């Protein structure tokens, strides 16, 4: 098992009710696996929200295998101005 820290921003934070989560995942889990878990925890509140993923403060456009201790941020687009 690996342990990753999830940083929650904007809509993700409100959907999960947390600024930060620590989750244990199976070895070999990827960023898209984690996104599915996050979306399922949000009970539908993120269904119409696009999410971009950053691992250890670096934006990742490809599905990426996660390592123990990684910090993963989900970044939604925001409309307000």
């Amino acid at each position, binding site marked *: 098992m690996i342990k990753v820290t999830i940083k929650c921003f904007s809509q993700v934070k409100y959907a999960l009710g947390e600024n930060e989560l620590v989750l244990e995942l199976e070895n070999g889990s990827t960023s898209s696996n984690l996104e599915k878990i996050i979306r399922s925890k949000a009970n539908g509140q993120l269904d119409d929200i696009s999410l971009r993923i950053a691992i250890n403060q670096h934006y990742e456009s490809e599905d990426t295998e996660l390592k123990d201790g990684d910090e993963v941020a989900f970044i939604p*687009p925001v409309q307000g101005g």
Partner: protein
Amino acid sequence: MIITPKELNDQKKDLLIVDIRPSNQRNETPLNGINSIVCENGEVSNIKEKKVLVCQYGIVTEGLIIEDDLQNTFSLLGGAEAWNEFRKEQKDLSQWSRQTVLPEIGIEGQKKILNAKISIVGMGGLGCPASQSLLVAGIGSLHLIDNDTVSLSNLHRQPLFSPEDIDNKKVIVAKKKLSKLNPEVSIKISDTFLDEKNAYSLLSNSDVIIDATDNIKSRQLIDKISKELNIPMIYGGLYRFEGQVSVFNVDGSPGYSELFPDLPSAGDACADAGVLGALPGIIGNIQALETLKLIVGIEPILIGKILIYDGMNHTAKTIRL
């Protein structure tokens, strides 16, 4: 008391000019076109004539006059640096002396700011503070683009507007209010929403485009034009207590389409999600700050990075794109 280089130039015959700088500064930056005497700080109070004290940037002399309660004494605003610039260009930059004293800005940086042309798309929560800060910083010309009118629900986060402005066009009210802050700035207004047909002509004469819009389609359009014209885009976005800022498309650096490809879905805009009134002031001012840094050439800057500021916990996260 303060005297500007222009005022000193007009009345220098009646004033004794006292240069209190150390010899190395006097030798490196001699006062041009004016007779002065040299005096160490401690002796200045012995000079009873009406006088002007000169230091390098006009800050030491202001403090000296207050500390020693010097009478009949002026401090030259902006100091020797501003005076020599005035003599050279007949342009008084002393108004920005607290900026030009910064080694990262200096007189040359201020000149870049004074020559810059900035377009701001959207005069709402982000556009109001960004335009105010850029204007007072000395930006040469501003182009404000928006077709919206002021409404009561705008007032809590758009401090350029007052209750009597309700139902009036934002760009017209904004120009009127901003002109009072700095009458010398050229403010152009376009009373229209940005669209595919007008975007190119509206934005092509800009050095920097500030994205202060409130919807993703406009952000994508600005990003597209920004890339095509190679004009940097300063992105800002808000959600409740959070804001995002980035500097996009600087000589091929990542833009909005690299951060959010295709047509992303964001859910609610400000009006639906809500936003605490003070937050746009913070984010709009960060956009103005990054704009000034970009114009002057100061690093580090948010090129290839997105800043996510959380006003609830006061945390800021910078993510590399």
